[in-house]
């Protein structure tokens, strides 16, 4: 080999054989989660499970083989959000007959619990050992205890990776943020990134004072696509106007104009809690300062504004990093990588990435995959029987 011979840069992904081998455990586990084993009584359920299984494993294989994370995660994440809307509606209609939440539903604990309630329930739970949410603890659709266990386990494993891999709402604003090729609003004042902390503080204090979930009652934009209280008073009408406005603004319009996840990065009160969990999570994303050319492409592409000038200097993303993989894939010098705390930056990046993807995909198969399969089943039932449930 002469001095002028150029060596081809090493491909970021793994070879076909390695990718297939690493995919095997995920395939087996996801098959169990999604189909419940051999085909049972309901062929439609099995078909929905198999279709989801195929899609999940194809995308996982592509992530391993190509070394790219973001584009395949995006497909899964947006699919999760869209299918949640379908399966949620079907479940609620089958149990209550209407998407509108009535006072009788509240008394009987028929409100499904979601993770966005968690910031509001912490202080009252500590003081009174009660959950200030009109749901069911152990039974019914989306019982409180199930969501708490899922959230706790996922947060321990992924930190704020929850926000880019498992949150079934995040795909809505992320999907909208990918519509335009270039942003119309190019820069966002960094001070807005403190708003989620303020929302957390405000709703936590108000919920503690009133013993009712202030975020759900006043601010949750996703009531626009799930369920909301029947409009029976002026107060509820005002609350409805607020959440519809927030949905249109933060989840649809601003993400389109800025190409950023504005609801997740600039409003969601669960984000700060997940960011704190990032501090104790073993995975993070690091920048190798020797390879970085300060082109700032990562800063411009980060959906959650988790990179700034100080990040490039320190080689670390901000605590708000959701581990979506966008900056890792975008960096032209391959200076950014998934990283395991305690190890050297840039060494074993592939291993770190695979070790991150494994628990993530296991969780996604069971949790997100279950939602996607349910929605496919609802659609199949609608097509074959005329009813979604």
């Amino acid at each position, binding site marked *: 080999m002469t001095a002028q011979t150029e060596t081809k840069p090493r491909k970021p992904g793994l070879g076909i054989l390695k990718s297939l081998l690493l995919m095997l455990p995920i395939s087996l586990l996801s098959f169990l989660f999604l189909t419940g084993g051999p085909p049972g009584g309901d062929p439609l359920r099995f078909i929905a499970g198999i279709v989801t299984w195929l899609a999940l494993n194809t995308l996982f294989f592509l992530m391993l083989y190509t070394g790219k994370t973001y584009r395949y995660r995006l497909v899964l994440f947006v699919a999760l959000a869209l299918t949640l809307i379908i399966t949620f509606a079907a479940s609620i209609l089958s149990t209550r007959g209407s998407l509108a939440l009535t006072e009788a539903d509240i008394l009987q604990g028929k409100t499904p619990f979601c993770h966005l309630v968690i910031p509001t329930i912490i202080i009252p739970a500590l003081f009174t050992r009660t959950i200030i949410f009109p749901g069911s603890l152990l039974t019914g659709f989306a019982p409180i205890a199930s969501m708490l266990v899922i959230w706790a386990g996922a947060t321990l494993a992924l930190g704020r990776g929850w926000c880019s891999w498992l949150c079934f709402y995040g795909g809505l604003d992320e999907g909208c943020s990918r519509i335009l090729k270039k942003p119309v609003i190019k820069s966002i004042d960094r*001070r807005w990134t*403190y*708003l989620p*902390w*303020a*929302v957390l*503080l*405000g*709703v936590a*204090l*108000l919920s*503690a*004072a009133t013993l009712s979930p*202030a975020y759900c009652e*006043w601010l949750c934009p996703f009531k626009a696509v799930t369920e909301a209280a029947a409009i029976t008073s*002026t*107060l509820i009408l*005002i609350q409805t106007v607020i959440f519809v406005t927030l949905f249109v603004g933060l989840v649809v319009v601003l993400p389109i104009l800025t190409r950023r996840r504005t609801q997740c990065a600039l409003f969601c009160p669960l984000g700060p809690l997940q960011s704190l969990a990032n501090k104790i999570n073993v995975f993070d994303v690091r920048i190798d300062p020797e390879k970085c050319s300060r082109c700032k492409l990562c800063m411009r592409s980060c959906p959650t504004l988790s990179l700034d000038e100080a990040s490039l200097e320190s080689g670390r993303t901000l605590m708000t990093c959701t581990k979506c993989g966008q900056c890792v894939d975008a960096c032209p010098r391959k200076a950014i990588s998934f990283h395991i705390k305690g190890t050297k930056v840039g060494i074993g990046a592939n291993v770190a990435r695979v070790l991150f993807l494994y628990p993530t995909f296991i969780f996604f198969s069971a949790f997100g995959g279950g939602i996607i399969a349910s929605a496919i089943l609802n659609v199949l039932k609608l097509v074959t029987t005329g009813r979604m449930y």
Partner: protein
Amino acid sequence: MQGFLLGLANGTSCVVFCAPALIPFFMHEGQDVRQNLVTLFKFLGGRMGGYLLIGLLAWGAGSLLSGAAGYQGLLLGIAYVGLAALLLAAVFRKKAPAGACAFEGARARLSRWPALLPVGMGFLAGLKICPPLLLAFTGAASAGSLAGSLVFFLAFFLGTSVYFIPIPFLGVFRRVSALQIVGQFAAVIVAVYYLVVGAILLVAG
């Protein structure tokens, strides 16, 4: 002593009610602990004023409980809307630059009367006919003499105020500029909540 102990036993509901407005306000102000303690005393002074006004209204109506209870919704509505207005004024007021002389405008006038904000907030917080307040008047009324009633009431007020003492220690974190920004945003959020709820209470009567 009985009044003070009664205040201690019942004061937690006061601080729980006031915390959503107070904590963001103190965070936003970004003052040190000593300055925060001064602000707290102004707030408590205003709260005492609110209590006294309720007491006077109730005694003037001739009946402590039923007279006051009839206007509870209206007073609560006024308190909420006023609190919201003061919180928003605190967040958006222009702080007077050093050495400024002629300085006009409502925002500037607010900056020359910094006491207005915490005293006003305390006064409006005191307008809420909260359980400790009624207990205070019941206890004070049974004291037997005017002096005894006043002493009982003051001791009760001090007892309820003990729970506010930790709040000024937010000043320890004043150098963390992020906390000021968070406090600013949180104050606006809480203010909007109080504004909407207060407006509905006023309209509903």
